[in-house]
Structure formats: C-alpha cells, structure tokens
C-alpha cells in the first residue's frame, strides 16, 4: 500500500498533465492552475524543510566542533541576518519593501555579487589551462576541433582588420551549420529521452524516486 498509492498518484496526475496540455479549454486550464498552486505549497514546505535541515546540520557542526565548524557559524549568521534585513527588521512581512533595506542591498551588492562573480570568473583560468592541454593536433578530428575553436575565438578579436570579415563569416558558418546540426540532433535526442523517461515514471517502470523502503 505504501508503494501503490504513490504509483497510482503518479499515473493519474501524469496522464492528466499530458492531456491537459492538448485541451485548450477553461476547465482544463483551471485544474492546471489548481495543481500549480499545489506546487507552490509543496515548494514552501520543501523550503522550510531545507532551512531546518541547514540549521540542524550547522548547529551539530558547531556543537561538536567538527572540522571547519567556523564556517557553520558564518552560514547561520548570514542566513539569519539576510532574513532579518529582508523583512526590514520585522517592519515589512507582507510586501517586497524589505528588499530595499540598506543592509539587505549592501550584503547583496557587496558580498553575494562579488563572491558569485569571482567563482564564475575562475572558469577563465581553468579553461585556459584545459585549452592548453587538450587542444592538441593528435588526429584529424582533434585538428578540426582545434582549428574551429581558434576561428571562433579569433572572431572576437578586433585586431584582425582586413581578414576580420572573413573570420566572422567562417565563425558564423561554424556556429550556424555544424554547431546547429549537432545541437538540433542533441535537442531531439534529449526530447525523445525525456518522453521515454516520463512514460517509464508514469507507468511505474522507473521507481527510483520512491526510494528503497
């Protein structure tokens, strides 16, 4: 019974969601929106559960002085501080005015943005190192990849004056023809794979989401 009910729910709602997509009627739309509200409700509970889990894990780390427990203090401090600032010290619970709170903006603009941008920009260093090691003309295909990469990168370079337009045309051809063909094939492949997986889940063949118990 513990497994049959979830399987039945997935079957019923899965089939309904497929059909509603093809039924452009108000009642179908109403039911769809009703279910969408449920997604928000479930999402809010998941969020609450996530915050509780984060607090518990961090608290245990601090209590038992586990390795790097100091980071858990910063995590909890950041979490509670942003909640406090986001609600404008409790003055605005039901509107977005807290987002204009000076401290909330300062933490967002001067801590979150630089941290995330730094993490993302580290990619440049690893891409350079990886390109140096991986782009070797070991075979015909590797050489084609190497030449294509160089042409697409050279297109960005404004130093190439007279040959610039030719580079631009070649790079556009590479992006619009071989890249497009490969991407379309991948997109169609992924689409078919998603349909197959969704059918397996709806029909109860794929049950990994139920867990082991």
């Amino acid at each position, binding site marked *: 019974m513990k497994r049959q009910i979830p399987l039945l729910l997935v079957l019923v709602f899965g089939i309904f969601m497929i059909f509603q997509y093809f039924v452009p009627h108000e009642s179908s739309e109403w039911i769809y929106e009703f279910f*969408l509200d449920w997604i928000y409700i479930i*999402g809010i509970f998941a969020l609450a559960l996530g915050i509780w889990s984060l607090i518990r894990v961090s608290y245990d780390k601090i209590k038992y002085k586990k390795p790097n427990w100091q980071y858990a203090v910063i995590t909890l401090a950041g979490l509670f501080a942003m909640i406090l600032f986001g609600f404008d010290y409790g003055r605005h619970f039901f509107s977005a005015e807290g987002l204009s709170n000076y401290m909330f903006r300062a933490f967002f603009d001067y801590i979150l943005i630089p941290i995330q941008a730094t993490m993302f920009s580290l990619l440049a260093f690893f891409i*350079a*190192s990886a390109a140096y*090691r991986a782009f070797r003309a070991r075979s015909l295909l590797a050489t084609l990849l190497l030449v294509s990469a*160089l042409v697409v990168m050279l297109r960005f370079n404004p*130093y190439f004056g007279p040959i610039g337009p030719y580079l631009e045309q070649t790079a556009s051809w590479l992006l619009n023809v071989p890249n497009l063909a490969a991407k*379309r094939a991948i997109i169609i492949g992924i689409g078919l794979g998603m349909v197959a997986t969704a059918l397996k889940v709806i029909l109860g063949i794929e049950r990994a989401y139920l867990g082991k118990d």
Partner: protein
Amino acid sequence: MTGWIPRIIAISGSDIGIIISLVVIGGGLAWLLKQSIKAGDVDRRIVFLFIFISVSVPILFPITFSETATPIVKKLYDRIENLPEGSAVLISFDFDPAMAPEVQPMADAFARHCLAKNHKVIFMSLWATGQSLLSTTLQNVVRPEFPEKIEGVDFANLGYKAGNEGVLNVIVTNFRKMFPTDVNSIPLDSIAVFKKIRSCQDLDLIISIGGGKPGAKEWILFVGDPANVPMGCGVAAVTAPQLYPYYPKQLLGILGGIKGAAEYESELVRHYDRFADVKKPGLRMMGPQTLAHVVIMAFIVLGNISYFVTRRRGKKP
C-alpha cells in the same frame, strides 16, 4: 623633436595598457616558446599567471575597441528601434549574480533603448536573485537616466515570481492570475502599462536575459512559440551556441556574452548621442576578454609546438 615630449606626456591609459600588455605578455610568451621547444609542457601556474596579467592590465589601463553589430545582434536592435512608440516590451531578468557581470550590461542596454524609444517596459524575473539585479538596473539606469519616466505609466516592475515554467504557462493566457499586483503591491488593473495588456499575447516583444534554467529556451517553449510573440535574448557566452537552433525564427536575435553586449552598446551610442557619456561596461570588458583570448590562443599554439617537438624527439607526449 619638439613634439616628441608632449606626445609622450599625452599618452593615454589605453596606450599604456597596450604597451604593458605587449611587453609583458609578448615577452613572456616568447620566453615560454623557447622553453616549450627545449623542455616540453608549461606548468599550469604559469598559464594562470598569464591569464591574470592579461585580464588585470586592461582593467587597470582600460583598453577599448570600436565594435560593429553582427547581424544576430543588429536584428534585435532593429526590431526595438522599428517598433512603434508605446509598444509593450517585456524584459525578464532570469539570472543570478554569477552571470551578472556578463549579462547585466545587456539588461541595461535593452532598458535604455526601450525607454529612449518610449516603449512601455515590463520588468520581471523568474529567478529569486533576479529581482535584486532588476532593482540594480532600475536604480542605476532607469531612474537617473530617465527621470521623466513614471513607474506604472512608462514602465512596470512585476518582480520575482516562483514557479519557473509554471509561471510562463499561466501568463501566456493571463498576467493577473500569476501577478495580481506588481512588486509594490499595486493591483495590475490600476497600472496604466497593463491597461491594454491581459496576457503575453498582447506584448510586442519579449526579451529574456540570462543563461540558465528557466531562461530563453523556456520562454520560447512556453510563451514565444505557443502565443506567437516575437522574442529576443541576451545570454552568457557559454549558453549562446545552445540557442542558435532557435535563431532566426523563434529568436529574432541573440546577444552572446560580453561581445554581444559590447556590440549592442556601440550600436546604441552610434544612434543616440545622449548615451555617449553613460557607462558602457560591455565595451570596457571587451579589452580584458580580447587579451585573455589572445593569451589562450597563444597557449594553444605553444601546446601544439611542445607536442610536436616532443613527438619528434621520440618521447611519448
């Protein structure tokens, strides 16, 4: 001879940047070429050092280039330019701070262009962190550069709504069901911008700015295609090739990475004198990016020289 000294004194920051880059990077790469021929692979810390120099020098001594819009950018620019005054344009901020340095310049440029053309602009976000970045554009671009534009009359801010594709699936037929109010809790029925707009089908153009999920692809699948609304997008460079299959039918144009932002900014400056003095982060960031690309290409060449030299000597590369 007399003009020599003033010429030296009048040297610009950009010239200093180019000279330092040429000397440090060019000299360093020449030394590395010699080393590669002699001893093989270069330590990756040296690669990192060169990338650091190639990015930091043009930031300290700004190197800027003139850009010309490529067709994929120009088409989107032309669409906004040729829409009749008062057209409804939706700009969705679907990104987080990690992507912001790359795509926020596009958001600013789109906002500038649409407001300069007197279009009615609707700002929204499908990403939780997008709302604060949207506020940044309003604070840094819309309010100081267009003080005459009134919120609610000339533009509206719907803010963030959770639900990803679910949000799109609803607003494609009805905005008010998903956004009963704007970000300031004002009912949509009281907002002038929404007087004639019931759903996404009433929009003249949708622009999604981002690079993740939900993003431009989801906008095409759930709104652009089903409702037949023209769409454009500005995305991070890594995402741009994935969106090429949708161009030019489902996407009028794509701004890919800093290059796309720089091309759009240069097009704006070319046509609007009022934007000549505003900050142009896209154009400014092209300097470090171009130099870093040159260094990466040089390392690819060095890597291949080292590979062939090692192979010729009979060693296993």
